[in-house]
């Protein structure tokens, strides 16, 4: 059974169709990428899957359970966690504090427990700290561990974003344009990182512009245009798909990475 199933998802804003009848399945342990020109509805699709917006119709099924209309934080609890396109982090905290706060889902103590600093709450804190340190290590953030996030060098922001998402123990991690604005070396580093995360058993969904990286990293690719599915297949299938080339017609070749 697929880990994540999207069935006939549709989202309209007024008269505008942002996502039109999209269906696909993501297998456990896959790296699944969604590409498409600007405004193709990629980000909206992400928001729909993580319940940050409600679909007009259609369903999202995760581990056999319909999560379509659940609140976003419940969807996160089920194990579907996203990162953000912009450099969205907790700016007024240090890196390690960012990651510790993000461990929220793992806490067993209640709000009152936090307040009275119950043994359970103390144990939680201890665990979060250890787990945060290991996430920081995996993502190579040790050198900036105690830096205020606001002052972080640009290159670290995306890692921090991923570290925050990792703290929520996702089963499926949705990365929103993790390579954008990066030079080739940086991209290589993040590609390795994403693979590393996948190797820890986390299924990855990507939204991306950078074709070169996408072709390298993805197991399967979904191409959207004007909200509709254009093609779905392995990187090599996509590279030769007529409809895809049509959709990207007039665009720079290198953008397609062919």
């Amino acid at each position: 059974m697929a880990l994540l199933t999207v069935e006939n998802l549709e989202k309209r804003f007024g008269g505008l169709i942002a996502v039109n009848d999209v269906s696909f399945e993501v297998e456990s342990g896959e790296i699944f990428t969604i590409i498409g020109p600007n405004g193709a509805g990629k980000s909206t699709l992400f928001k729909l899957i993580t319940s940050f917006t409600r679909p007009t119709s259609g369903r999202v099924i995760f581990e056999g359970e319909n999560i379509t209309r659940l609140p976003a934080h419940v969807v996160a609890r089920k194990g579907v966690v996203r990162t953000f396109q912009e450099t969205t982090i907790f700016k007024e905290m240090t890196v390690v504090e960012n990651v510790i706060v993000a461990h929220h889902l793992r806490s067993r103590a209640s709000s009152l427990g936090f307040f009275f600093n119950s043994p359970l709450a103390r144990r939680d804190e201890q665990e979060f700290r250890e787990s945060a340190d290991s996430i920081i290590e995996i993502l190579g953030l040790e050198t900036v561990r105690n830096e205020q996030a606001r002052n972080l060098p640009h290159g670290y922001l995306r890692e921090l974003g991923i570290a925050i998402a990792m703290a929520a123990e996702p089963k499926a991690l949705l990365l929103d344009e993790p390579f954008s604005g990066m030079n080739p070396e940086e991209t290589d580093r993040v590609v390795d990182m994403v693979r590393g995360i996948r190797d820890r058993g986390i299924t990855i969904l990507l939204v991306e512009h950078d074709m070169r990286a996408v072709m390298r990293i993805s197991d399967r690719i979904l191409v959207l245009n004007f909200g509709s599915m254009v093609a779905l297949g392995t990187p090599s299938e996509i590279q030769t798909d007529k409809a895809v080339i049509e959709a990207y017609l007039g665009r720079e070749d290198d953008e397609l990475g062919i």
Partner: protein
Amino acid sequence: MSSVAKGTRRGVGAPNRAVSIRIVLGVFLIVYLIVLPSYFAESRYILRVITTASVLSFISLGVWLTFTIGRINIGQGAFALIGGYATAILSTKFGVSFWVCLPLSGLIAGLTGIIFGLGILRLKGVYFAMITLSLTEAVRLGFLSGGDFTGGAPGISNIPLPDELGLFGITLIPDFGKVDTHIAFYYLAAVLLILGLAVIWRISSSRLGWIFKSLQQDEELSRSVGINVARYRVMAYAICCFYGGIGGAFFTVSQQSIYPSVFGVLDSLFFILYCFLGGLAFVAGPIVGAFLLFILFELLHEFQQYQQLIYSLLMISIMLWLPNGLLSLRLPAAFWRSRNIRD
């Protein structure tokens, strides 16, 4: 600054800091609970000023908490009014003891806060500020047109002083009518403020405080890691309203009357100013702000018609030259700030 250096400093400094915090706190408590009331025992005016400033601080502590979830709350006056009327109505119409009224007023205000909060906390920034400002006005007008139940414009007067509170025949708190009311109210206010500060301090330095802080910085991101944003922001807001309700109940019994204009938009605005001028980054900010501004106004009485002018000039100067509040001036930088997560 390198992270290593920072880490070391914190590691070495921690035990010293803990000791110095205890000493400073102890001195504060002794001065506040013993020195001040005995030194000014004969000077009722000064006792009253400190008492009033204490409870204004208490109410502002709640507002401070809504700042930590990133909301500018100009609605605290409404909840002080709700708490005040709750006490007034319960004690005059139903003969309920003040010691029951006090927590009940807080709860009523808190519950009302939850109901309003579920709707209005979806808004942010200026929008939230304006909607809470409207709330202050709406609640005031509501009590004004409440007919016999709220007493209309003249409100409710002849509210009894707090009666005796005993347990198994032992007097825990004496009847306020039989002791020096100034001292009695002073201690009631002091206990409220100390408890109130302790609770807020605890919240802001526990995991709850970090969750609130995460909401302030990015609600979407908090949501993405599974934090139930709606629940926690309503929680913070309800605690804030609870503080407002308790404070309102206090003022109602201490002045033994209440009417709709007891708390208005200006009061709500001043609660924010107290927090802001004291320093939003500090738990003690609202206390410093409230004491400073309330006592400052009293000191400026000498200047008669220029009182308000000088007052506002001083206020503007603080905002311009100390944009992070008065406490950003003080010496031990790490002292008042909500504690960092330890390494």
